[in-house]
């Protein structure tokens, strides 16, 4: 069963259906398609995570399960060999977690999108395209395929912000577009470089050897030829497959990327440069300070559901890319640059927290809190131990849930007040009690209270970074602790200003006049599951940790050979 392909294809099918229908069939139709598609992918992503599907259908290769591998294209470049790209999908624990997160956030955001009334067809088409690209990005194990999905997320997001956004939508969407585009251009360089330098040992071996020999012999032949420098260009097959690129045996001994090669530029090895390009490219997406300024603008202008997807899923692709590709291909460089990664993480945590404290706009406050919380992901990665890495992935998952909840809640408030100013609304505890209850859950989850998922993540990251003080520095965990204190300061200060006191609205409505309608059934339906999820993953972290463990230990083996 091509389970993973279903995740990518179902939204595309939905897209085809809705393209085929004229606008005049009505908004209901397009909404139904969107909901149907996202509900189906949600079920599939839960099933994938919880192993509902018979394992006999599942192909396991190199530690990834549900592998689907087809030749995509093969181009002969005279004098250089051939380039072969694959439609290669597969999952390990990390991608399962990210797919589950995407399934949840996309489905709930599609529910939240029911309030969109203008250009519903366009909106749902863009949403579907985005969904497909999101799943593709988390499933692709061929770097070129990944790159295509990665780029494809950009376009629908650009239009979703640019068309359905707020007052400064053009500005925000363009800023988002440029930043992300540059990020993806940066990661294209190491992708191409790795491919140029490595061979596909199986395909190359097949050209070198008689048909009847074992595959291991073929691989052996290819690698021997490579190391003896006897490989002719017409026999060489270059690849984009992750597990071939990450194996240094597939590099020629005189390759610029060979770990023993002393090739340097500006004092940094070529492998170092490639790692850094990957890292910066993905770091823009996370985002890290000082490459984060696209984020607050994009968030403020984007509609609530799109903000939820942006914070809940798209930022995670940055962290995912670093772990999967940057570390996957250049593990030695991750150790080399751990201190830099940790420093940027610590700066993001503290700086994001400080700027969040200064915000007067609640959506910006949440956006900067994202910058701060995503810093934990980098700090966890920099620790290079099992606690840190597990914590980093846990934080991506947990922050995905919590930030989506926060943005959806802010959206609910905005629909009533049309005001993002923190000082523009008071006394919400009294005027919207149920809404306030959910905000309390979201805020305390966000500031890392125990028994919420954020606590598990921050605990693990801090344990990891405390364990790594010998290689990093005690400054890093201390910065993280300062960040946690800041988070309680900015969140509770906001809470105090908006929720305490007598109800009051901008424009001078006071008391009973400032009464706002509380949560509708629809609003409950897309916020409550997230609130419950953050509690569930705080109470039973094993649900996620046991899935992550088999994926994290091989990464650690490459990091500590």
């Amino acid at each position, binding site marked *: 069963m091509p389970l993973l392909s279903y995740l990518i294809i179902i939204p595309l099918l939905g897209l085809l259906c809705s393209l085929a229908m004229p606008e005049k069939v009505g908004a209901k139709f397009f909404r139904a398609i969107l909901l149907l598609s996202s509900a189906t992918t949600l079920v599939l992503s839960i099933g994938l995570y919880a192993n509902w599907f018979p394992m006999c259908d599942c192909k396991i290769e190199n530690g990834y399960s549900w592998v689907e591998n087809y030749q995509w294209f093969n181009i002969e470049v005279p004098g250089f060999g051939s380039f072969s790209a694959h439609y290669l999908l597969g999952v390990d624990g990390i991608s399962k977690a990210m797919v589950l997160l995407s399934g949840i956030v996309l489905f709930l955001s599609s529910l939240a999108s029911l309030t969109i009334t203008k250009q519903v067809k366009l909106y749902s088409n863009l949403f579907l395209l985005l969904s497909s690209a999101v799943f593709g990005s988390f499933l692709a194990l061929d770097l070129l395929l990944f790159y295509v999905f990665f780029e494809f997320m950009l376009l629908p997001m650009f239009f979703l912000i640019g068309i359905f956004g707020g007052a400064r939508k053009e500005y925000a969407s363009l800023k988002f577009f440029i930043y992300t585009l540059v990020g993806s251009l940066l990661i294209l360089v190491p992708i191409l470089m790795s491919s140029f330098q490595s061979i596909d040992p199986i395909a190359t071996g097949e050209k070198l050897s008689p048909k009847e020999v074992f595959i291991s012999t073929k691989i052996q032949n290819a690698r021997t030829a490579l190391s003896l420098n006897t490989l002719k260009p017409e026999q060489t097959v270059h690849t984009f497959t992750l597990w071939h690129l990450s194996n240094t045996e597939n590099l020629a001994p005189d390759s610029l990327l060979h770990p023993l090669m002393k090739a340097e530029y500006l004092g940094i090895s070529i492998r170092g440069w490639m790692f850094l390009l990957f890292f910066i490219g993905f770091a823009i997406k996370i985002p890290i300070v000082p490459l984060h300024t696209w984020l607050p603008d994009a968030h403020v202008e984007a509609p609530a559901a799109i903000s939820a997807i942006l914070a809940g899923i798209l930022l995670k692709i940055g962290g995912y890319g670093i772990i999967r590709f940057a570390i996957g291909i250049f593990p030695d460089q991750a150790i080399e640059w751990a201190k830099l990664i940790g420093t940027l993480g610590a700066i993001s945590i503290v700086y994001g927290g400080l*700027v969040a404290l200064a915000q007067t706009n609640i959506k910006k406050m949440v956006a900067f809190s994202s910058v701060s919380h995503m810093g934990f992901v980098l700090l966890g990665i920099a620790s290079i131990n099992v606690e840190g890495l597990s914590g980093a992935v846990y934080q991506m998952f947990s922050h995905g849930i919590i930030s989506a909840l926060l943005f959806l809640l802010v959206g609910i408030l905005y629909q009533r007040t049309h005001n993002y100013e923190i000082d523009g609304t008071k006394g919400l505890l009294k005027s919207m009690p149920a809404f306030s209850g959910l905000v309390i859950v979201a805020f305390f989850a966000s500031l890392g209270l125990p028994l919420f998922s954020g606590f598990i993540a921050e605990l693990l990251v801090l344990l990891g970074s405390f364990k790594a003080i010998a290689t*990093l520095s005690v400054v890093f965990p201390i910065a993280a602790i300062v960040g946690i204190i800041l988070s309680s300061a900015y969140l509770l200060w906001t809470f105090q200003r908006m929720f305490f006191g007598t109800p009051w609205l901008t424009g001078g409505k006071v008391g009973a006049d400032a009464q706002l309608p509380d949560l509708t059934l629809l609003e409950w339906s897309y916020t409550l599951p997230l609130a419950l999820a953050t509690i569930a993953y705080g109470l039973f972290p094993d649900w996620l940790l046991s899935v992550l463990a088999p994926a994290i230990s091989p990464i650690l083996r490459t990091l500590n050979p």
Partner: protein
Amino acid sequence: MDNNISLALLIPLLPLLGFVINGIGFGKLPKALAGTIGTLTVFGSFLITLVLFGGVVAGGETISSVKAYDWITITDTLNITFEYRIDSLSIIMMLLVTGVGTLIHLYSFGYMSHDKGMGKFFAFLNLFIFSMLILVMGSDYVTMFIGWEGVGLCSFLLIGFWNQNRAYNAAAQKAFVMNRIGDLGFLAAIFLMYNAFGTSSISEISEQLGTNFKSGDPQIFWITLCLFIGAMGKSAQVPLYTWLPDAMAGPTPVSALIHAATMVTAGIYMVVRSNVLFSLAPDTLHIIAWVGCITAVLGASIGLFQNDIKKVLAYSTVSQLGFMFMALGVAAYSTGMFHVLTHAFFKALLFLGAGSVIHAMSDEQDIRKMGGLWKKLPITFWTFLIGTIAISGIPPFAGFFSKDEILANLYTHDKTIWILAMVASFMTSFYMFRLLFLTFFGSFRGTEEQKHHLHESPLTMTLPLMLLAVLSMVGGFMGLPAVFSEHHMLADFLGKAAGVVHGEHLDHNTEFMLMGISVAIAVVGLIIAFVRYGGGKNVPVSDEQMTNPITKVVYNKYYVDELYNLIIVKPLHILGDISMLVIEYLVIDLVVNGIALTSRVVGLGLRKSQTGSIGFYMYAMVIGIILFLAYFTMASNLSL
């Protein structure tokens, strides 16, 4: 121990159930039902605790643990289980939390009966009992930390319960953030424990301590210091004490339960729980003794001139917590726990009594507007009197025994601290009797309307008062001094299973002398208060008329809040604003705009093919990357 031990799992679950029912049913359940559910669940936990208590008494040395489930597991590296530890120390605290908790739930039935949010109130109270039980029952520091932060959350919710008053709004946030600073000390201690022992389980750590660590080990010093920072936040010690008086913004039962009897003593409990660690860190103990001493004197001195009935009690709590820490600082752990218990009885009593007064006075808290209440509120008066005698350290009420034991221990260890503690003790007696005289004696100074409304509280409120009064009278007998009895019941009980070290014994003459001095000092405090305020005379002047500069400084709490605002809160906000305005907007935007401008001047041709904005951000990216490259080259030699 017997098979009943698995019942322990139910103890925190019952209040949690109460929280869930009252939380979901808020607005739908009738108020009386919500109150009944809230009270009965806690009472149920109390009964189960009693059953287990019997087991612990019978079982002697054994420490039983009940595992709920594996909480955080990473193979071979980390295994944090959700496990309860039942031994003499935790069972005593569990009795206290559920016992006093039940009384205060009952009291709230009457106190909150007019409040629309009664169901919500009971839900939060139940959540608090749940968190507090997790705190005392947790067998692992991380599990304990769940409760530790959980009580902070409940404290936040309950302080902010009446959030309509603008002056009170900041109190909840202040309490939580200040607690959080301490909490993160606790958290840091957990990480240091992992580095030192590879575990955070209380029993595993004490096993390792015996063999691998010597007294004065720097690792142990840092661990205990960080733990103590946690205790300072939760138990309102200098410098993290200013949140507690503000926390009085919450309803009075909350002040009694959370901010007097249970939550604020969590710090003491935690230190006693970790006594094996602390005993190996003499430097930390020394710091604890002095912090406790400063807090006791400072708190008591501020209490001297306060005119808000709850504020007096709040500063008194700060000061009494300081007494407990002084005891811990001289390694008299069981003595500290003794004072935790007696203090819980009389301070809960005093707060509930104050609540009864406030209730009768139609929410008036200023003692300058009270007076002569003893006739109208007889039960409240008599029980309040018992509480006052108990806290002042006049025998044979509870406070005398525990405070005397602390003072005796201080005397043997550090005479300077002992003298300062005597000063604090004197002030305690003075401000408490001042409060009593101004509130209950003389003539009524309130409005006619208040006078008309004056009434004794209903039985749901007076019953807890009477029960707590009995406990405040006889509670001291669980720890008779050596001159009267060979057996110190509490110390023996704790010493057996919890590994608590009891303080040294003095010879009988010294002990009698010390007792004599401390009683004399308390009585002198009483007499001075009587001479000055007896019969309700010398009512303090209103705030504006205050002329004596020293009184004014003390009355304004030494302006510590203003100082913190000036040196911490303001600078933090300024730093935030600077980050946003200068770095975010000025530096980044200025660089970006500058380049955009250059591009406009230089790149005329380019401009036709691009909108200004694209060029603008392209350049922003380029600058970002150049900064990065510069950073990398430096970072390769960077060492932090």
